[in-house]
């Protein structure tokens, strides 16, 4: 059972930028209400896209370096990385179908 794992400023490069599969990053903060609504959706996505997409979460309070580097402003922000590049972004609490649809564009079905 895949669930979103935590990444930090320290391992973002290895876990996200050097990933061989696309990565969904959930930028969240502890006192952000809508982040609580998005978290279970992100976990469901992790299961649905198991092995095709890596799903991780980054606490912006504890990891301000990466959050600032990618210009995170509104939280939650969900960012998709492929081959080390940011390729798409969804801001705010979105329905699962919206997120799955966005993510599907970057999944290589041959793998």
């Amino acid at each position: 059972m895949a669930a979103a794992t935590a990444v930090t400023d320290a391992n973002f490069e290895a876990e996200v930028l050097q990933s061989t599969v696309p990565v969904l990053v959930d930028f969240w903060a502890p006192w952000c209400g809508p982040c609580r609504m998005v978290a279970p959706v992100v976990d469901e996505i992790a299961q649905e896209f198991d092995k095709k997409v890596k799903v991780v979460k980054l606490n912006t309070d504890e990891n301000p370096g990466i959050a600032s580097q990618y210009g995170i402003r509104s939280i939650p922000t969900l960012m998709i990385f492929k081959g080390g590049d940011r390729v798409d972004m969804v801001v705010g609490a979105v329905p699962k179908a919206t997120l799955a649809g966005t993510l599907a564009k970057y999944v290589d079905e041959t793998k």
Partner: protein
Amino acid sequence: MDNATTHASEKSLDAVRKFAESYAKRTGTYFCADPGVTAVVIEGLARHKDELGSPLCPCRHYEDKEAEVAAAYWNCPCVPMRERYECHCMLFLTPDNDFRGEQQEIGLDEILNMR
């Protein structure tokens, strides 16, 4: 003070709670159907009030919180809320919002019990 597990003072928590109730009623907006969202946002605002002196929006990432407080744009109620009833933190939801509940009130006990 940066510890994510640090809770707001009860004084600030109650002040922000009362503000949120009166502002919802005044603007005809409602709290989220999930009271956990409301409680977390009120706690986040109260923590910023304790730390920074102003209830800076807890649903943003800032390079410099002190500078943001001075700029006032994201102090609750923020400019987008005052101008367009847009609260991306989902504290104040307009009547047509799918996520809104029926409440414009939340008890202090209710917030404390959700910690």
